[in-house]
């Protein structure tokens, strides 16, 4: 139960928050609000799934926001100016992102450099490359972009589950399976526990590290594709600062920033909490947008202190003998 505690706290925070909002605003408890919550935060949820893997493995990826921006510009140019079919453009950008992530992972692994500085360079590179391609916002007029909203599933009430929201849910499902039910997932945790020990126990840490950053960048690319649907445009300044929101969502979701512990489901709830704060502020109308940042900061602080306390507690506890029987 101990391991689940942070996730339970996160879930409780979300549920209480939702109830409070519902009591305060009469229209809040509706499928529409819930569906919008999913749709509006889909890009954050997708990228946060990848970040969960990175953070559990003991790393960090600061490049994701820039990769999202790069993706939108790339798509806009490919679809609009080169006339490539959107599907082909999607495939191409995901391959580019995979190569980008793999390169960062390789540099981290083989040059023994701190992930934050390598992914920082990655962020400069991706943001710079998107600036070089275009500094203007380029609208995307492909039919796919105008048709996509039609494919939403109507929910009881007047909510609709959009394709975007479904993509996010699918990514979360994929993330849960990959992290919790495969050898790769176990290796991700192993890396977060101790790289040296994992290597001693036969985990090929180089391969795992590269795959983790590849996954993060691919999901950031997917997130960028989703992002381009919000605005039907590519803009090199989109998703500035999203890496921070993403890290915050992962940590609020109960994942230990030092690595080793965490759940994809927790990240999902962490994303919903951030969305909930945003919705509350929108519904209230008098509160200003900066309260989102302050509230996120406070939650971040609370969860980091909670984790620190739990780590300290676990350390003290592990000295005692627990439940051993000699049969």
């Amino acid at each position, binding site marked *: 139960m101990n391991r689940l505690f942070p996730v339970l706290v996160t879930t409780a925070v979300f549920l209480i928050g939702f109830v409070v909002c519902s009591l305060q605003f009469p229209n809040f408890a509706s499928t529409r609000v819930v569906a919008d919550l999913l749709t509006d935060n889909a890009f954050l949820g997708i990228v946060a799934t990848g970040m969960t893997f990175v953070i559990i493995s003991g790393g960090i990826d600061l490049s994701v926001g820039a990769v999202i921006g790069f993706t939108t510009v790339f798509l806009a140019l490919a679809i609009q100016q080169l006339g490539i079919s959107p599907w082909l453009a999607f495939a191409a950008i995901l391959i580019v992102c995979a190569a980008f992530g793999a390169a960062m992972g390789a540099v981290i692994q083989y040059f023994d450099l701190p992930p934050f500085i390598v992914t*920082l360079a990655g962020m400069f590179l991706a943001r*710079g490359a998107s*600036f070089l391609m275009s500094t203007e916002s380029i609208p995307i007029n492909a039919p796919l972009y105008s048709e996509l909203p039609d494919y939403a599933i109507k929910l009881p009430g007047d909510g609709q589950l959009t394709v975007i929201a479904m993509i996010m849910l699918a990514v979360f499902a994929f993330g849960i399976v990959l992290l919790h039910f495969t050898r790769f997932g176990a290796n991700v945790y192993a890396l977060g526990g101790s790289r040296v020990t994992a290597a001693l126990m036969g985990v090929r840490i180089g391969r795992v590290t590269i795959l983790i950053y590849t996954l993060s960048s691919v999901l950031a690319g997917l997130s960028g594709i989703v992002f381009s649907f919000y605005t039907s445009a590519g803009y090199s300044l989109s998703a500035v600062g999203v890496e921070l929101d993403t890290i915050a969502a992962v940590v609020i979701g109960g994942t230990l920033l030092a690595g080793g512990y965490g759940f994809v489901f927790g990240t999902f709830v962490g994303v919903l909490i951030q969305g909930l704060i945003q919705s509350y502020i929108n519904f209230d109308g008098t509160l200003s947008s*900066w309260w989102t940042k302050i509230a996120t900061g406070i939650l971040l602080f609370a969860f980091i202190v909670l984790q620190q306390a739990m780590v300290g507690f676990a350390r003290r506890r592990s000295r005692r003998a627990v439940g051993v029987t000699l049969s």
Partner: protein
Amino acid sequence: MALRLPRSGVPQVLAFLAILAINWTVSPQFFDIRLQDGRLFGSLIDVFNRGAPVALLSLGMVLVIATRGIDLSVGAVMAISGAIAASLADTHPLPVVLAAALGAGLLCGLWNGLLVAVLGIQPIVATLILMVAGRGIAQLITEGRIVTFTAPELVWFGGGSVLGIPAPVAITLGMLLVTLILVRGTALGLMIEATGGNARASALAGVGTTAMTMAVYVWCSLCAALAGIIAAADILGADANNAGLWLELDAILAVVIGGTSLFGGRFSLVYAVLGALIIQAMNTGILLSGFRPEFNLVVKAVVVLVVLLMQSPRLSGLGLLLSRVSK
């Protein structure tokens, strides 16, 4: 850990001179300096003037990094202090304005120092909290607007001059001297290097490592607050959204270029400032040569990677191996 001999700083000086020379070839007027209204103008002066905020940040950052830490919140602290200074400038006398803005910086530094030195939270995690929440706090102060002011006393910090030297340059130079006196004039420098080099051994030798860690975060935030005042004075207003945005990264980059290892220990204040000037000289050079300013980020990314790879223990090991093989 790799052992390094005390650096000489020659590569940094050469790099700076080379970039200046390149700038001169693309723009023959680069070294032209003229005196106008008692203040110096010219491209070279511009490099120093625009480089001042990052140089100030790097003064604090280099000390933090020397203790094996990192401070991601300096950009947010700049935004907070700028917001406070701009809001108070037209209604309060200058000493009050400065005291309030720098006092806020002091508090931010104490907060970071408390989390790192006392609660033992990893620096990158601890300072992330203020990085996220700080900008929200700044927006709270400015109420989301761009607060402008006209008070000439504060305007001086951006556009004034001392003996013809632009005020930001003079202030940065002053701070460099003050920091040098504080750090090298007392035993602080040795204590910080010892703490960063081996905190356990230093504590056993009677060094107050907790106080040392606390002090560097406070100083870092104070430098950031001062940089925030200059940035606000430069545009005659406070923009909580954009003031100091990404400058934490430039500051870290400046420190790394200045030859201080991200793994703590030996540091150099002067070369960190030189690192900041190298970054700015590159920026200016790119502008002068007619490249798009967007090119900047890509260049920075490449510089980060090259400098890091040169510092990487793996690579120096490889170089050693190669030189041995070639014999």
